């Protein structure tokens, strides 16, 4: 049984805006296990990035704040600890890579310098030479050729794919327990995407960290994740292991997402001429409907969903999976 290293319970994150307070994350629960990848899927605005940032306590305050919940890393709630203790965890035990490798690296420092920085901060026992050697090693580990030369280069001298590799190298330099990847491949070419995802899987096998993969792309989920949580309007609407999610989705939203993946093969006899989409648009967080958030786009919505029975709760369906729906699909 894999070791549970992160346990998020009832996470609620609010943002103050000109038009009032919105709840970007509304009661989210999930666990992360060593050596396993949890995917958090959703459209933009679903709250998945905010969730990821909360784990690192990187929500800008103001205007945001964690209004409720616990984020337990190895049993300790990181929301309660003093900020300097949090800083010993960041980059060290829990690390994060971001969507835009272009702008996420500091343009005026060499990549070597930026990797060494995180080593200097958290692995103080290393000497300067040892740090330099290790940063070259990290570059080699993430598959960058001629790392001794590259280590002295600046981010702008590298391609997008290579920059993301540098980010991965930087984040894994201290061998963290958890790597949070926020849309790591969205800004990259498709071919590079595949390479980066493969790299991450390989490193996970070698280093054994747990990964939280934030994405809107179900293809990425299928490639890399062991378990999946689907988010909509700040809530998890379905949680399952990856195989079950794809073969037997229970939430209409999940089904809609899966159906809208274009595929190259058509099942025997079926002519697919139009790509199915989910009708309607994501409601504004300022103006969520009464009852189920998904009701206006749902094909199986009924009167029950419109508010008479309150909001649907996340409930177990069988063993090992949960759905938030009054009419889970069969």
């Amino acid at each position, binding site marked *: 049984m894999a070791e549970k290293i992160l346990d998020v319970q009832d996470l609620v994150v609010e943002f103050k805006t000109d038009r009032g307070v919105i709840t970007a994350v509304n009661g989210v629960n999930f666990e992360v296990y060593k050596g396993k990848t949890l995917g958090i899927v959703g459209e933009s605005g679903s709250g998945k990035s905010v969730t990821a940032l909360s784990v690192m306590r990187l929500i800008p305050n103001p205007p945001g704040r964690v209004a409720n919940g616990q984020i337990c890393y190895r049993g300790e709630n990181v929301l309660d600890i003093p900020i300097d203790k949090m800083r010993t965890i960041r980059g060290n035990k829990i690390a994060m890579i971001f969507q835009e490798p272009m702008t996420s690296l500091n343009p005026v420092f060499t990549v070597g310098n930026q990797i060494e920085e995180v080593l200097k901060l958290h692995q103080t026992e290393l000497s300067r030479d040892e740090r330099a050697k290790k940063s070259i090693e990290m570059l080699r580990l993430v598959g960058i050729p001629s790392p001794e030369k590259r280590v002295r280069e600046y981010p702008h001298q590298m391609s997008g794919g290579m920059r993301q590799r540098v980010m991965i190298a930087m984040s894994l330099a201290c061998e963290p327990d958890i790597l949070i990847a926020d849309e790591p491949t969205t800004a990259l070419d498709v071919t590079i995407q595949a390479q980066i995802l493969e790299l991450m899987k390989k490193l996970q096998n070698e280093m054994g960290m747990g990964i939280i993969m934030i994405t809107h792309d179900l293809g990425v989920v299928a490639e890399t994740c062991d378990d999946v949580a689907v988010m909509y309007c700040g809530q998890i609407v379905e949680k399952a292991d990856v195989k079950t999610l794809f073969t037997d989705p229970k939430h209409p939203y999940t089904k809609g997402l899966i159906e809208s993946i274009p595929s190259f093969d058509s099942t025997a006899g079926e002519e697919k001429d139009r790509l199915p989409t989910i009708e309607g648009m994501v*409601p*504004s967080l*300022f*103006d969520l409907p009464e009852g189920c958030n998904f009701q*206006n786009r749902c094909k199986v919505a009924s009167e029950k969903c419109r508010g008479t029975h309150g909001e649907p709760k996340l409930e177990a369906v069988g063993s090992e999976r949960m759905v938030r729906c009054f009419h889970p699909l069969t």
Partner: protein
Amino acid sequence: MSVKEQESKSLWNHAWDSLKSDKMTVFSMGIVGFYALIALLSFSGVIVSDWAKEVGDSYGAPSSEHLFGLDIFGRSVVAKTAKATEIAMSVGLITGLFTVVIGVTLGSLAGYFGGKIDEFLVWFYTTVSSIPQIMLLISIAFIAGKGLFTVYLSLGLTSWTGLFRLIRGEFIRHKNREYVQAATAIGGGDTRKIFKHILPNVLHIVIINFSLQFQFAIKSEVILSYLGLGVQGVPSWGTMINDAKLELARGVWWQLGAATAAMMVVVLAFNILGDSLRDALDPKLKGK
């Protein structure tokens, strides 16, 4: 539904809302409006047309009747300040207009047409901006003689360089944007593209620049008047402050005080307004 409410309000509506909501900005707009009003009333002769009248003793101290006292000739400082407001606002306005007309025209020509026209205009701009503005002002004023017209001319001819650069940059950026290419595709000609398509997108820069130029012009007038190159025969804040040179030694502070206060308030208001306009209108700042 709620989605419709999220429909993008036009940049202007949004900007106006954001301007309205900040109390300091509204207050500043009020101040500018007040000064404009005084200027108009003074210009049309409705008030202070008799500012030159002697109403008391030389250097009379401030009293309930004359809030800021009297100057060396026994004239009311309040009246002079009001008259000077007319001068200041006119300097700001005319300088601003000159700046906008020259800067936008040259900048859009350079940015839009590129090539030789751009090269020439950029050379021209570099030439003019290489000479520190104060030297240019002195040089022009030197040969044009003293007076209000010289102030207009010298400031107008030298303040356009900043705007030129900004407008040219924007035109270069926008020239290759999709919406302009689309206009070409449906047969739009040059003038049409310049006026109908690109200029509106550039308007916010002009507005912001105008408000900043206004206050810079007012401050420059003071310097020019001190140098003796400015306004003659009519009081301006510059001449009033200049008079203070002799007055302070005698302990007479009221003319200095009135002019400084009057100028400070309106320049401050323009600065605040300029900042707020920039926050409201600059699309790059949205979402901060």
